[in-house]
């Protein structure tokens, strides 16, 4: 029985079927991207064990598919089991072994990247210093107050996923409970127009909420836009501390609880670094006569207090900055059109991927393996050809 299982798991047929299914998943995943957008399609088809493809407009799942995780896992198992059962460990096949180890590393490395890598955005203007990057997808409701020292804030951050209508969130460090009255995945806020909005109440009675209205928007799946969530929350201390409108489009508001002022911000999830980057200068070159970018370049100053590091670096296309386990890629660039006479702005994509080195190792192993196997065959061929080599041209 067990041998049958191993036979199945090691069979070449399984490899072919898995590769075929892989092609199908890529095909349907690409189709799915048109309606779901890149991020959702990735989650649904590739970062999953099982997936199904639904034609646009259909209410029922139609094509069931194995997800990317399942295919990858089975391929790895297939390859490893095959080595224990079908393949023979001989020097003559050492190149193939090396190549296969390279493939396994690629597959595992991709899985590790998928599960461990974190991407975020660091955006700043010329002259500004940042020691954190922000998520491009996820928001958090942050409550902040001074933490003893003058230049530190104590932050209690509630992830947006907890802010569902009717939810109550409390935390030992917060002197109040947050009760969610309205929640929107994507919305925009705007000034309440006295005449046009006369039949709409303000978003909330306290703070800026009294002067705005919240317009819910359908969640966006497009690559070039993002959802900006909004909510209306009531803060409940010993008594109610008022009802507040919060949105990713608003800056901080202040609420006083138990004699202490808290700042309230609904903002992208932040990831703080032990070092800081200052944007010194942006260079934005386009091809002459067009708006097509030729070169985006950011000159930044990197300061790391712990190591005493202090240096200037140029970040541009294909030349990222690697520091402290993070990679900073040049992402977007622009100029502020209104404020400060047009200071340059830059956005860096920050990737923290502990397994970034595995694909390189995998590729080197595969290349070496193929080369070794080729050389083994070549030497064998030459050796066989020698006897014939005694022939001389007439």
């Amino acid at each position, binding site marked *: 029985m067990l041998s049958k299982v191993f036979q199945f798991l090691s069979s070449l047929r399984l490899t072919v079927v898995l590769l075929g299914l892989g092609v199908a998943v890529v095909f349907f995943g690409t189709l799915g991207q048109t309606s779901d957008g890149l991020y959702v399609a990735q989650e649904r088809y590739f970062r999953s064990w099982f997936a199904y493809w639904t034609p646009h407009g259909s209410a029922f799942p139609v094509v069931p598919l194995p997800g990317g995780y399942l295919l990858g896992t089975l391929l790895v198992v297939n390859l490893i089991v095959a080595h224990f059962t079908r393949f023979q460990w001989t020097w003559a096949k050492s190149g193939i072994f090396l190549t296969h180890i390279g493939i396994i590393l690629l597959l595992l490395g991709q899985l590790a990247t998928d*599960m461990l890598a974190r991407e975020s955005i660091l955006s700043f203007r010329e002259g*500004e210093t940042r020691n954190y990057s922000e998520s491009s997808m996820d928001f958090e409701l942050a409550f902040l107050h001074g933490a003893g020292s003058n230049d530190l804030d104590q932050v209690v951050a509630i992830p947006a*996923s907890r802010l569902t209508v009717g939810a109550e969130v409390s935390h030992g460090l917060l002197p109040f409970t947050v009760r969610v009255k309205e929640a929107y995945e994507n919305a*925009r806020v705007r000034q309440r127009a006295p005449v046009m909005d006369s039949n709409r109440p303000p978003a909330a009675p306290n703070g800026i909420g009294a002067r705005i209205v919240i317009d819910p928007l359908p969640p966006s799946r497009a690559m070039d836009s993002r959802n900006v969530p909004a909510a209306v929350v009531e803060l409940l201390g010993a008594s109610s501390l008022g009802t507040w409108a919060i949105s990713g*489009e608003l800056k901080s508001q202040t609420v006083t609880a138990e004699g202490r002022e808290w700042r309230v911000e609904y903002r992208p999830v932040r990831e703080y670094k032990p070092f800081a980057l200052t944007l010194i200068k942006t260079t*934005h070159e386009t091809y002459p006569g067009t708006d097509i970018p030729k070169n985006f370049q950011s000159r930044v100053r990197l300061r790391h207090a712990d190591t005493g590091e202090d240096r200037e670096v140029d970040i541009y296309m294909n030349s990222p900055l690697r520091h402290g386990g993070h990679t900073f890629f040049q992402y977007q660039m622009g100029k502020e059109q*209104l404020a400060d006479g047009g200071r340059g702005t830059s956005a860096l994509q920050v990737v923290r991927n502990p397994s970034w080195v595995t694909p390189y190792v995998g590729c080197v192993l595969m290349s070496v393996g193929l080369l070794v196997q080729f050389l083994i065959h070549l030497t064998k061929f030459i050796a066989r050809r020698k006897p014939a080599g005694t022939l001389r041209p007439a």
Partner: protein
Amino acid sequence: MIPMAVLATAWATSGCGKDEVRVYQAPREVPVTAVADRGGSEAAPASASGPGGSPGAATEPSERAPVPWTVPAGWEEKPASGMRVASYAVKRPDGRSADISVVAMGGGAGGELENVNRWRDQIGLEPVTEAGLPGLRSLVAAGDREMVMYELDGKKAVLDGKSAARTLAAILPAGEMTVFFKMTGENALVAEQKPQFLAWLKSVDTGGGRESSPETPASAAPTPAGPASSAPALSAGGGADGLPAWQVPAGWTSAGAKPMRLASFDIPDAAGNGDVSISKLNGDGGGLLANVNRWRGQVGLAPLEAAALAGNSRTVPTAGGDRATWVELVGTDKTILGAIVPRDGVSWFFKLTAPPAVAGRHQESFERFVRSLRF
């Protein structure tokens, strides 16, 4: 089986802690931060693509000076200037561009025909007559209101003498104001941007605009009693919208505010409906004679000389003590009965348009309506 175990562990641990409340200490920030940006444009970090956005510059919590509409992707905001409430641009790398503007003006802003002809002139099109307007019009819903939209396809190469232009323009009456939404630019680009323009119009939040729009007579008309109703149906005259009070004759139904109009009534009649419009213009609205002649043109009559005006009009006193200049312009297929009341630097126009026989039947009630005016 080791890789399986690795995978399972990695799988199990991923995603943990995502919903946890995080507590940390962070260096206090210098107060300036770019607010959230929606666009993926090059200028995204500064959120300069947002409407009115001046990230980090203002001290108010709300930085965006929000506007009551959604700016389509790819529209670049420009500073509003002059008469413009808002201004946007669409640019293409090949140099083609389109200009988008929002202009709000008091009253009817010169009339629909004049504006359409001005826009036509800008892109090298011949002017049209009032009769030609309905064929060019389309209606667009904006919130609970309807806007009249014109799409003008210029054929002449008016842009640097190289390419033709196209204009999309929509008119929204908003109480005493008229708001114009207009996109003009390179012909193909504007055609390509039409869906965005329409989506933009649809996104305009007209909210409680009805409240200030002068169609309140709707609730009062038709009056239940017969002619010269003993229960006079008073409009919102003297209210916030500044319309005069009036008595609506029996059988009239309110048709609400339309482009260039503060109020409208329909007079149902088997022989063809009559249309009553109320509008106003600043000053003398171009002059009494010019307006009477414009109306004469609409029914196919030749213009009058200034000296002939007095002989072709009479004065009708109103309940409020004003004096209306009354004209009866009988054409071959339609008749206009009009009354013009100059008052406080504003000219009010009351106009009934109907087939001649219908106008004759309702002349008396229209005159009673004009006489009932109380500003």
